[in-house]
């Protein structure tokens, strides 16, 4: 079975729409900026990948995550040619930190808070009339967990259309606690690089309209083939290689594909010391002899770690990449960790583009061949356009979710 992605919407530090975000990422533009809403004197790290929509420096307002979520859903509905009426449509939202930033502002600064603002259904009912809404707090794999549950509703024929979304805004508590475990504060996110220092958070929202069948002349960006889910049940923060590998294998099995079939891997790649190594080891174990075949990239190098939004954001970028053949580079990746030395990281736009590779941020550089051609390494049987993508998302508590997405080579 596969499910049509009929509409997409996105908001991130690098852009306000799917096309803006995709163009920025392909061009190797980072959303890194000085911390906007916190008292910077309290933190060692001074930068993050925030959405620049606050009223002024150091001024913060509640419910920013809710606003981005609504915008992403609006864009996805418009894109799918559907009315802004979700009375009969399930809406599944994955988030790591919900509206906890609004809780912090209420607790620390006295801005008003209603308990109903903690979950996103309240705003979605106001804006779209939606009542079958579900907020899942599933850490950094939340939006792919939501995607899996959305596909289950379609498979069970409980619904013909579902909206799946992901959203996260920085919280001071998480930013401060993450900083506390870094030896040296990171100045940017450098996934899989030997000199990476750790993760910096990012903000964003993503939404897709999924349909069980496509009406005549309906829009399609491609399909979701399957989503695999599991849990390490190992440690509250440290990842587990075997369990991550099991989640990837589960996704492949559910989709009926082999590692050899995968053309593009959207790595979770947070720039965290242990996570990147664990992910690289798991991917290497599953792909085995084919590990140098698919193109790979880690967009958190430009968006920061958008937590619960990140999986769906990566899925949207993957579908655009499959459709256009353009794959964003992994900014700041100069010297991959040992576990990832065989990975074929996408160099970014090739001649005609002006990008990551040109600015020296991607390994190898470009040759003038098709996007992703790294000199000195055989293409391993890669022969044509990109068709199948794997999207990784792994979260605290060992919450693993892996999606397989497809754009038919002939194009829908």
């Amino acid at each position, binding site marked *: 079975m596969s499910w049509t992605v009929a509409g997409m919407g996105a908001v991130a530090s690098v852009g306000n729409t799917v096309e803006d975000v995709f163009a920025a990422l392909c061009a190797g533009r980072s959303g890194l900026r000085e911390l906007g809403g916190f008292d910077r004197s*309290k933190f060692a790290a001074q930068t993050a990948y925030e959405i620049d929509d606050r009223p002024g420096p150091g001024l913060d307002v509640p419910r920013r995550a809710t606003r981005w979520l609504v915008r992403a859903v609006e864009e996805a509905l418009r894109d799918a040619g559907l009315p802004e009426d979700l009375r009969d449509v399930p809406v599944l939202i994955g988030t790591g930190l919900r509206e906890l930033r609004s809780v912090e502002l209420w607790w620390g600064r006295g801005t008003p808070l209603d308990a109903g603002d903690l979950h996103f259904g309240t705003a979605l009912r106001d804006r779209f009339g939606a009542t079958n809404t579900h907020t899942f707090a599933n850490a950094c794999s939340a939006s792919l967990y939501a995607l899996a549950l959305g596909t289950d509703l379609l498979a069970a024929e409980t619904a013909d259309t579902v909206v799946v979304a992901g959203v996260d805004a920085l919280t001071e508590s998480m930013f401060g606690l993450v900083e506390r475990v870094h030896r040296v504060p990171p100045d940017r996110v450098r996934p899989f690089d030997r000199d990476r220092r750790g993760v910096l958070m990012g903000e964003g929202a993503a939404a897709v309209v999924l349909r069980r069948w496509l009406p005549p002349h309906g829009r399609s960006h491609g399909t979701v083939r399957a989503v695999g889910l599991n849990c390490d049940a190992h440690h509250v923060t440290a990842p587990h290689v075997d369990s991550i590998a099991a989640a990837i294998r589960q996704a492949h099995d559910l989709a009926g594909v082999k590692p050899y079939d995968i053309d593009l891997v959207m790595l979770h790649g947070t720039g965290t010391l242990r996570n990147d190594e664990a992910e690289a080891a798991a991917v290497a174990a599953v792909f085995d002899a084919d590990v140098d075949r698919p193109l790979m990239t880690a967009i958190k190098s430009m968006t920061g770690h958008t937590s619960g939004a990140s999986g769906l954001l990566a899925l949207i970028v993957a579908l655009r990449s499959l459709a256009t053949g353009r794959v964003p580079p992994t900014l700041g990746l100069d010297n991959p960790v040992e576990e990832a030395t065989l990975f074929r990281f996408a160099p970014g736009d090739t001649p005609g583009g002006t990008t990551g590779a040109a600015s020296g941020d991607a390994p190898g550089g470009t040759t003038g061949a098709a996007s992703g051609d790294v000199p000195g390494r055989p293409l391993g049987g890669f022969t044509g356009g990109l068709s199948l993508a794997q999207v990784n998302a792994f979260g605290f508590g060992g919450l693993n979710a892996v999606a397989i997405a497809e754009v038919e080579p002939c194009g829908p």
Partner: protein
Amino acid sequence: MRTVITGVGLAVPGVDRPADLLGRPGPAAEPVDVGARLGRGGLRYKDRATLLGRCAGLDALTGAGLLDGGELRVPADRCGVVVSSNFGNLDTVCRTVDTIAAEAASAVSPMDLPNASSNIIASTIAIEHGLRGPNLTVCNGITSGLDAVHWAASLVAAGRAEAMLVVGVEADTGPVRRLLGTDRAFDGAVALVVEPTAAARVRGARIRAGLGGYARRADAAACLTALAGAGGRWEPAPAGAALLALPGAADRPPTGALTRWRGSSGALGVLACAASVGWTDLGGPGPLCAVVADDGADAAAALTVRAPAVSW
């Protein structure tokens, strides 16, 4: 696929059995002593909601026969966890911003890092018992608990798990009291084990109740319309949470049986299902419809629960 409840766990002051949930409140009961129930191990650095959730989860898994002498009786990767909690980690979040405001980020406790993420209860319970199936945290307002039971059944029906532990939990902490404007908030957890009927039969597990249809709609009336079946329409729902019978039922749970649990937020829907089990434990006839609604909420939800009749 039919799904059934095979285990119930309770960590609610003054409540020993599921049927107690239907009774009138007694004198103010002592808070749940999580240390006495869990032993000394693993209490440090965990917020109260996580510990309450562990208490109820342990009892539900044991009651369902899935845990036997600490050994899991189903494949670990086929058993998952769904937690419902709206306010579970607010205390960690608020304490951390207080520390940052008074001092700096360098003064916060790194042990609080996992607790700043709202999925900490579900991941802690998964680690405790080695449950490697899907792990989901539902933070969905007043309907959250019923939604959690629904998603557990949905994960089982989709073939993603053979058994799911569902935990609804809230803790009485300073931030929750301030947010709800109360001097004493609900402090407890309720857990259920949900699995396919066939699997429960193969295991020889005692089936406590069967799960039926689910709806989340604008209000209680819309949910009940959606769930009206061949057995007819449900009797109208009073305000707030309720256990409804079909009109003409020989016997029915006391009206207002769930009223005193109104403030239990993320635990409420799971508690309502456990109360249904209490009803069938007493030999009450089914089916029942658990309805969760409240003034000003964005939606209501309802779930039908059947007595463990022969047909299951």
